């Protein structure tokens, strides 16, 4: 269990850190022509706190003799496929590929997804409560993980809302969008389980991990602020589009 938790966290840590590096490459490439991107910077900040969190957690689990929690492993395993798919799509795009796949209509397995997600949340909450009733002690050391659940769920909500709004016009679903919509809430759940295990005494909150998590909080808030400002139009980022070619002169008829 411990090795499984450590390895899965290593995979996610490497994926998110690589993704952060990839976004820096994008940011640098576009800086000259499009200017600085707050969205890109915020996303880099998130990737560089999420990635190190998983790397540090994996390393700590492996070296400090901390026994891995089963619910932690479940949370990582649920989120990992979506995270890896998104990452591979971005690698494909970076190398000149499409960077997305399209799912026509709504296949049965996708219809089942909300129900499975609901069942998973119920199971996760029940498992968490079961763990906590056996004896827990919450301290302020665990709160950044709770805050991250809120922020990541909010980002996941924005993503899911966009997928649902786009579906009627597109006639289907974007794999890239769906994978992102899955990544964020599961990431939040991972952080909550980290807190739960810390509260029950299974995990020890070490200063390095705590520092990374406290850096993740402003990074996530910065990201949500940027997204909200872009929605409101108070911030213009790489979502600006040049004017269309000069419109044809209109003659009085």
């Amino acid at each position, binding site marked *: 269990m411990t090795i499984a938790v450590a390895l899965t966290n290593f995979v996610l840590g490497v994926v998110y850190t690589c993704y952060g590096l990839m976004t820096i490459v994008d940011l640098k*490439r576009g800086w000259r022509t499009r200017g600085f991107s707050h969205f890109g910077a915020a996303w880099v900040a998130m990737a560089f706190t999420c990635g190190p969190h998983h790397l540090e957690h994996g390393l700590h689990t492996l070296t400090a003799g901390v026994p891995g929690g089963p619910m932690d492993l479940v949370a990582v395993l649920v989120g990992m496929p979506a995270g890896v798919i998104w990452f591979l799509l971005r690698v494909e795009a970076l190398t000149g590929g*499409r960077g997305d796949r399209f799912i026509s209509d709504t296949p049965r397995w996708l219809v089942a997804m909300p129900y499975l997600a609901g069942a998973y949340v119920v199971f996760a909450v029940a498992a968490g409560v079961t763990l906590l009733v056996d004896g827990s002690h919450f301290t*302020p050391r665990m709160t950044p993980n709770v805050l991250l659940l*809120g922020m990541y769920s909010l980002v996941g909500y924005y993503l899911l809302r966009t997928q649902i709004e786009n579906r009627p016009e597109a006639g289907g679903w974007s794999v890239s969008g769906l994978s992102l919509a899955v990544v964020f809430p599961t990431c939040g759940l991972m952080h909550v389980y980290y807190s739960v295990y810390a509260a029950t005494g299974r995990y020890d909150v070490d200063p390095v991990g705590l520092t990374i998590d*406290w850096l993740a909080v402003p990074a996530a808030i910065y990201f949500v602020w940027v*997204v909200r400002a872009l929605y409101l139009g108070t911030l213009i980022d790489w979502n600006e589009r040049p004017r269309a070619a000069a419109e044809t002169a209109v*003659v009085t008829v």
Partner: protein
Amino acid sequence: MRWAHTGDGRVGIDRGIRVDSTAVRVAAVFRLAVAITAAAVGSFLPHVSGERAVVFFIVDLVWVPWAAVVLFASEQPGARVARLGGPIGDLLVIGLSQGLLAQAAVPNFDAAILPAYLVVVVFSVYTLERPAAVGIGVAAIAVPTVAQRLLPVTDRLGAAVLAPYAVAVVLLLLLIERTTRMQTRAASQYALLSSKADTILAHVADAILVTNAEGRILQSNPAVARIVGCADEPLVGRSCEELLGLHSGERRLDCSAGCGLLRSDLGDDAGLGVEVWRIGSNTERQPLLASASRVESDGGDVEVVHSIRDITRLKEAEEAKTLFLATASHELKTPLTVIHGFADTLVRYDDLDEEVRSAALNAIRARATELSRIVDRLLLSSRIEAGRLQLTCQELEIESLITSRVASFAAATGREVVASLEDLPTVVSNEDALITVVDHLIDNALKYSPGGEPVEVGAVCDAEWVQVEIADHGIGMDSEQAAHCFEKFWQAESSDVRRFGGTGIGLYIVQSLVEAMGGTASVSSERGAGSRFTLRLPRPRVPEPAEELTPTGDGEATSIREFMRQIGVPERRVR
């Protein structure tokens, strides 16, 4: 009062909202930074329990999220959550911390936390209207007074602490409110004047240069780069004399002992508008109307404000009008001479036979028609110049129209005019204007092909345009002549006036009419090989289909743009 940008780009003053939205945002960022720092510090403290743990849970799980909500809300100008919610939340958190930590026996904590209330008051005055700021001030006195009630009587703050604190709050409110009001008023007036001055300077057509007494440039407006032709070069610090190189008459203006435009030897108008010139970017003389005046700067130094107007086009227009008068007189004189001669003959000789008499009358009629055509063109040119040209355009069968004009010219002149037109779609155009344009271009092509070479008329089309081409194999033009041929009163060579006739306004009329119909006119030509005039006329518009949502991310490969797309960030056009 604050500056507000209206939708159409104008700047106005919003007198209804006194609050500075930037200050609200700065306060929100500051609050969030303090909250996160306090929360993070608390989580690193060892052995936190009891009331202390409760305080940090409040900071972590209430204040931090609330500060984030206030920051998000601050993006909407005037949002009450951002303006009022922030300070109220701060007061509650500080009040709870004061009561709980004092109970946890942190020494002198209830007195030490009083400055935190003052910070909230300071931010409130900057971010709230006066009544709300006063309310926060009152709360900043009431909350610590109530919070210390949670403590045993012996541990409570005495009047010796609370009274000076309350006075400090009131004084702070009054002082900052007054300072803020004065600053706001001054800033508004400064912004108004500054914005006005900037707008005027940015949009004025004349180049404005401000130099110091030594002639070094301190300030310039965008028109300087346009007139002088130095778009990418920084101007500040450069020598005005070197940049402009002004000449008066044949003498270069000497600015070594002060601005040359201010010297008295330039006549009575010196400094008020002197005709000067410089060598332009095309190495030709660029005539300018320049003036200069001395002003005193803030520090008491003397500065010189130069105003320079490019009068090249004015001069060219003057020359062109002079040439036009000569040309038009010549054009009018020729048929008038013929008319006068034949009329004189008819009056003087009663015994002319019928054949000669008929020939004379026909000649008079032909010349009168020619005269009428010249006058019509002059009148049309005047209407175009006065902006009184209004064309009503409709869907028009262009193929039959051009075919009939080609046939008419071929029959009238006996020259070869070849039309290659097949299945042309309709265009949006004005029939009379289009006939004038086509007639003039075919007439021109025939006129400037003195060797009798054939004239070709062809057309192609795409989804939006029909492109008509009228080509000859005559004398043609070089690139310089082709670049200017659509200008008013222009002819390739002055000798052309005598050789080919014409007033030099035909192509100007052609271009004006085509542009008024929503099209374009252009030319490609080679000296000795002939000219090809191209008209692009718009086809009727069909409604555009609704923009399709791209189903996969093949628009842009960047992960930033892809994430934006997936999270639903709306695309916005560049303003």
